[in-house]
């Protein structure tokens, strides 16, 4: 861990100003990932700009009927907020599927979006890693890759994004509000995270100096038919091997709208709107779900240790869509799969 400066930001403009003055600084909120990475010398910020006092802690309804979540709302508060529990239980469930109670108490909504991969090699500065040190190579491709990506990976990087919350946000078509040196802007969730390509050092499309101020949910919350199904190496407190956020809306017996996002399989939450479109108008049966799963995984590619994820994801998708259709969402407290 290197020595660093510490400064507190008074408001968003001040935070942006401070960052502009020291481009190798980092914002810190909950610090649940950043501090670990600093201890391992993976992150070596010259300065930490403490944003925990910024007024970004509200969860409020928007005039359009959606909900705006301040970037500093702790994950726990968000998961148990009545608006989220009642209208967006998919989001609440995904949050509670992640980490531990203690971590969720510390972690912020904005920080959750910006957590880094859990690839072993990214965490170990003794090994090459293109994400950590561009051009040094990817150790995972020919190394331990059981937890790595099966979709959207590149020769440069096969890391996955570890968030559960983001999988739900992707499925719910959230938007990310950011401020920065330029105009404040809004980024569709699908465009927020990116695929690694040949620049895996960039996890997101945030520009240098930008800060996440809020996440906004559209009105539709799929509260009647949803699930978040997470499969991992123990029953709690482990990152997803595969996770599935599924949300359905019915018109009678026919599916009117479907949302399907995968976690643990790619550099970003994985969605394919074309596949979701094929579910529209169909009845909710295993055959339709299996076709959707096959379609979503059509381009999936396994490496030495992670090919099992393709089959596991297929099974998980079918199960999650079944849970959603039946209105029997996966409990995050009871570990039995519904």
């Amino acid at each position, binding site marked *: *861990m*290197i*020595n660093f400066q510490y400064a507190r930001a008074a408001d968003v403009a001040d935070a942006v100003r401070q960052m502009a003055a020291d481009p190798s600084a980092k914002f810190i909120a909950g610090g649940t990932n950043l501090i670990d990475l600093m*201890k*391992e*010398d993976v992150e070596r910020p010259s300065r930490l700009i403490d944003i925990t006092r910024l007024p970004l802690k509200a969860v409020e309804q928007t005039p359009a009927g959606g909900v705006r979540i301040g970037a500093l709302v702790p994950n726990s508060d968000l998961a148990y907020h009545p608006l989220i529990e009642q209208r967006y239980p998919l989001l609440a469930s995904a949050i509670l599927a992640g980490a531990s109670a203690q971590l969720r108490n510390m972690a912020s909504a904005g920080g959750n979006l910006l957590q880094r991969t*859990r690839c*072993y*090699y990214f965490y*170990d500065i*003794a*090994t090459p890693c293109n994400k950590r040190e561009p051009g040094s190579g990817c*150790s995972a491709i*020919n*190394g*331990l890759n*059981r937890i790595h990506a099966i979709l959207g990976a590149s020769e440069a990087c096969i890391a996955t994004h570890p968030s559960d919350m983001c999988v739900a946000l992707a499925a719910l078509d959230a938007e990310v509000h950011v401020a920065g040196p330029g105009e404040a802007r809004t980024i569709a969730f699908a465009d927020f995270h990116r695929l690694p390509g040949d620049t895996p050092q960039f996890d997101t499309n945030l520009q240098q100096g930008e800060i996440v101020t809020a996440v906004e949910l559209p009105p539709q919350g799929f509260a009647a038919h949803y699930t978040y199904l997470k*499969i991992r*190496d*123990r*029953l*709690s*407190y*482990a990152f997803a*091997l595969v996770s599935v956020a599924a949300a359905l809306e019915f018109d009678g017996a026919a599916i009117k709208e479907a949302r399907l996002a995968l976690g643990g399989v790619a550099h970003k939450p994985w969605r394919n709107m074309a596949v979701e479109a094929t579910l529209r108008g169909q009845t909710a049966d295993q055959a339709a779900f299996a076709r959707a799963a096959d379609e979503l995984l059509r381009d999936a590619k396994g490496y030495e*240790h992670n090919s*099992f994820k393709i*089959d*596991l994801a297929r*099974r*998980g998708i*079918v*199960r999650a869509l079944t849970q959603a259709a039946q209105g029997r969402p996966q409990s995050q407290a009871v*570990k*039995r*799969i519904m």
Partner: protein
Amino acid sequence: MNGICRRGVLQGAAALAALGYHGDGRAGSAQHGAIPRQPGYQAEKPMTSYIGTPASRVDGRAKVTGAAKYAGEFNTSDLVYGSVVTSSIAKGRIARIDAGEALRIDGVIDVLTHENRPHMASTDAAYRDDVAPEGSPFRPLYDERILFSGQPIALVLAEEWEIARFAASLVRVEYEKETAFTDVHGRHDEAVALHPNGDLFGPPKPRGAAEHAFAAAEIRHEGEYYVPIEHHNPMETYAATVIFGKDGRLTVYDKTQGVQNVQRYLRSVFDMGPEDIRVMSPFAGGAFGSGLRPQYHVALAVLAARALRRSVRLVLTRQQMYGLGYRPAMIQRIKLGAKAGGTLDAIIHDATTVTSQYENFYRQETGWSGLLYKCPNAKYAHKLVRRDLATPCDMRCPSAATGVYALECAMDELAVALKLDPLDLRLRCYSDRDQNADLPYSSKALRECYRQGAEAFGWDKRSAEPRSMRDGAELVGCGMATGVWDAMQMPIAVRIALSANGHADVSCATADIGTGTYTIMTQVAADRLGLPLDSVTVKLGDSTLPQSPVEGGSWMAASVSNGIATTADAVRKELLRLAKRMPNSPLADAAPDEVRLADGKLVSRRDASRAVSIIDAMRSGAVDRIEQEHFTSFADDGSYAHNTHSAVFAEVRVDEQLGVIRVTRVVSAVAAGRILNPKTAASQIMGSVVWGIGMALHEETLLDHNFGRIMNPNIAEYHVPVNADVQDIKVIFVDEPDHIINPLGIKGVGEIGIVGVAAAIANAIYHATGKRVRDLPIAVDKLLR
């Protein structure tokens, strides 16, 4: 708890010598004597009031309030903080090491490397601790050679810990790298075969003609079982605080399972006199075998304190702890031949285990197979593969946790082949004699473990066919396994100082690594001295106290309890001597064995009205303190085998589509002699069962063989069970009187609880799914494959 071990009898001085344990007979007044052995101890009348009761931990309050201090918490003014730099390669040489940038940081005092370190001993013998395996022990910062990834190569010393850690990141190292090989698989032609019966831990001698019997057997099973490297991961990271005294003498607070082992090691490495260094370890936050040998942090902390002539603290990070010892990866092959009626004809057990390039660490995995079940023909082989890794070490129930896992999975597979209930097969193969040594047991209540365990579990409700039990989307499976471990005891010295106010100080250089040693010592002493619990203070974890072996192997409860009994008897005799001299003493004609201590009094066993209070006896003799120190060893004429046993029953539920496994119930029925404290003992077993769940489903140290490096050195990615993984665990202690093993009939429970758990779970998973996974951990990908 945990330790050194092997199967079979390991008792007395010969065994200690084999382990390298050499008493230095330090206490001048100590009397030595062996507890006689045959024909058996008289059954103790239950005169006791504390032994066998669920007393709460005497150190519980200190622990939960933070009053209990651990090695990295002792403070002194002017403390120097160390931070270790470790190697990033697994094999080669340090070509250049540059601490210039680190030394320029304000607050950095020095950076020690192999180039500038002060003198350390130059012979292997000097580094060989009480429990070192054969070979050339690792010497931290000794020279430029790199033997494993994560090896300490520099020690940064600074005025503050943060500065030390920052500066450590600035030490630049260039290596001359050589190709490392770290995989237990492959290159087995280079393996070293251990000679049967060649030494304490080598495979036992064969009996009969096992290969022939296997070939001729009516029913055969053959299987290969894999266990990966596992790490102990005690909660407390390794730490040492070395207080540099005004006279140059060192007081070392270390995290260890053996203060005297560490003290002897440090004296030898740094050529110091016995009075120059004192090692203390009053509390340890778990150790599980990782603290049996002195670890490099304590050597480095002492090296630094001597170099700077200042007090030094060194705390390892969680990541650095993965550069210490581990349970070796192993491949085991088991062949079982049986008659159609379900009796064994042949057992062949081969093991290939990993060790370092510089020490031959191994334990006797294979012998458990031939010991446990009745079988005329048995044969064992054990090969060592040397890899570019640190030396493995003992980890909770070394050899049995792994060897019995393989055996008990194989027995389950044999039961399937025989179309027999797995429990029925065990009963048909039940043996009342140690099959390797052909000796009777001093006690063996395993049959009762099977009976009580099966009843509590509801084994009779299990349907025989795999995949035949279901609950909704989940397949339900029930599995069982046997557990076995040694009941060892070691020579030990205990001192008791009884003051006239009726308070006793009981001291011994043993350790309490979270197991409850303080508590059971207090219980035994209180009973033997006839005092209430709060009139007894136990001191341990100090190298200046009476001699103790390392705390491991599950031998401490038996050893120290009987040691206390021996010394307490001497105190009683001394009190009686004083009481007899009182005018008109009611005990004037009482023989020593005719009186006992109870309620603060010496009381005649024949006539309870004849009694003298401890206080009166001491006052009348004008004595304000009685101090006795005695050395207790355990005579063994080799006519009995001593073991603990268990029967483990597990229920799993496996989601049929997704392969998600839940261990919903475990019943562990244990026969381990007399249980000193059912509360702390049950806690030992329960913790072991949790670990067994981890062994079955989660634990695996991931090595990248391209780099020879451990890639999950933290407890986020090295998975152990969390609360959600642990459901209903029931612990049963069956009654097992043992009048032969030692006067108190104690065996020890630190290790037996983990044995068989992984096998019971693996067998239950097979029963649920019909899928046999023979390599641990049983993760979802292996189940769906």
